[in-house]
């Protein structure tokens, strides 16, 4: 499974959230959620979950495993 950190802009589905970072759940990043990568080049990644936009550091994004 690939991590969110390596993804080009597009919409993906979260498969698994590794590690112990609970705030992700509060932001609706749980298995089954659709997550859209808006920008992934320099600086933090920008993603969308529903109608909220998030900036995520790359190391954290590596913990989020997604599929197309």
């Amino acid at each position, binding site marked *: 499974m690939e991590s969110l950190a390596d993804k080009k802009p597009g919409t993906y589905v979260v498969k698994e959230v590794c590690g112990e970072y609970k705030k*992700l759940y509060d932001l*609706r990043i749980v298995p089954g959620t659709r997550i859209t990568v808006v920008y992934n080049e*320099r600086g933090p990644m*920008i993603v969308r979950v529903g109608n909220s936009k998030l900036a995520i550091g790359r190391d954290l994004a590596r913990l989020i495993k997604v599929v197309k």
Partner: protein
Amino acid sequence: MEDKKIVALVGQPNVGKTTIFNELTGMTQRVGNWPGVTVEKKEGTMAYKGVKFHVIDLPGIYSLKADSLDQKIARDFIIENKDAIIVDVIDTNNLNRNLYLTLQLIELGRSPILCLNFIDEAEKYGISVDSKKLSERLGGLPVVKTSGRYKIGIEDLKEAIFNYKPIHCEIRYSELLEDTVREIVEKLEKYTLPTEGKFKDVPKRWLAISFLEGDPEVVELFKKNEDLFKEVKKIKEELERKIRHDAESYVAEERYKKVDEILKGIWKEKIIFDDIDRILLHPVYGIAIFAIVMYIVYTVVIGLGDVFIEYIEMFFEYLGGYLGGIIPEPYRGVVVEGIIGGVGTVLTFFPYVAFMMLSLSLLESVGYLARVSALFHNIMAKIGLSGGSTIPLLISFGCNVPGILATRTIPDPLRRLATILVTPLVPCSARFVVIGFMASAFFASHASLFAMGIIAISLLLLVLVSYVVGKYIVKGKPEEPIFELPPFRLPDWNYILKRAWAYTKHFLIRAGTIILAGSILFYYLLHYPSEENCYGMLLGKMVEPITELMGIDWRGALALLAGIIAKELVVSTMEIAYNGKIVEALTPLQAFVLTLVTVLYIPCLATIASLFFETGKSIKWTLFAVSYNLILATLVGIVVYNIGRLLGFV
């Protein structure tokens, strides 16, 4: 107050809770602190159809778990106030995330009033919601649509509060989760737990779910009965075996699944898309834009400020002259030189403070400040802080006290502590008073160069100290950043003015209280028993041996002592001590060093107090912050003075 019903506003961050609170309570609100912590507590009164309600704005929280200070405060309040009417404020655009918190409130046995806010935006973007069906699917909870900003639905909300009756409401999750919860509840009925404490009245079902979620407080509670703990732990492990991952994310998933089920067919989501963040958060363009924004802010603040300052100066000059003529001799000195000299000089700088706070509130209101945190995370992480430190540090330019309070939004406790410890190095508006005063007295032709120099030195030291603190003193892994970026919004002037006023108010209050009292005190210290041989001199001379190394005599030393109470007092005390003839008494080098030392040394009393409370009443950390500042100031003062002399300045 006791007989009034309590209304508590609950909601995730940025849902417009504060705006709704302002609409409900109007001018009656008071801001205090939650007991034991300095988290802001806003309270006010709402009157409707002759009934008065006591309204409380709880901190914005994502969930009810007790894993951050804000969440703990909100949750404890809800648990302890069983009869409170809970208004769950929701951003309609993000309904599917916000209902997560609603479900948790229901688990806790509450039946909140749902306030679907931002209805104006939702309608604009074509996001529709069937509030009647939503209410039905939530077991009959009252649902009201509002827009705090455009004052839509506020009367409906008041009516709903007025008519509120608690109802029994239960939301069931999947069979597997429900079975597991039931098993735990059975164990809870079989074994006894300590019955005192705040959890004595909460639903057992809630305790069971919270245990599965790994809520630290509930786990602690269960551990008090060893047999119980062993059995429920087994149940949890059994569940985890079945689902093949951890129970915690399972509970979260189940809630979101339920939310989607509830919203099916009655809420239409539309992605609101904007593109500009890829530029604003870009490590090169983003920082360039930030620099431009800050430059504009600085120019506007100084430009507009100067216009007003001229008039204020004229006013106090006139007032001093006028009062000097009519006040009887024994009081003339203290009024004209002490009060008007001291308080007046400080108040002259009010326009700068007001425009600075106005600009910050404007940037916050349109959503730019949220970007700044994300933009600066990498740089901040390099010096041992975090992106979340950026806003507290920016606020600290206004005043260190709200800056330190703002650190509570930093989730990582170690980064938060590091940020608190370095905050005093951010030059605040009180110190700008000193910088501005010295600049116009000694360096009139190079005033902004002088000011920039002092600010640059203190920010440089901030970077150094953060680095050292992060590396050797508050060690720990850097925190994983995640920032919510609220949509850009047109400025809401009502909100901005209110916000800016809340900050600047303190400046005025300080001028009228502590600065006034300090000016009078130091006036007398400098004139009794006689001007030639006063107590102030005695005090100043005690410190002089050290300050002399930086070229500062006992008068300057006394001003520095006064500045511990409040930094503005350095200016007013010098005005009195040097008899208004400071320009003749000090050389430019001495003035430069004195300003630098004032900016760097011991933080003011109010800052020390917030340091103490926000580090969890740690005497150790408070002493650490105070003493590193003092040592730094002394060293820098001595070094700069002596280098200056070597370079031929006097």
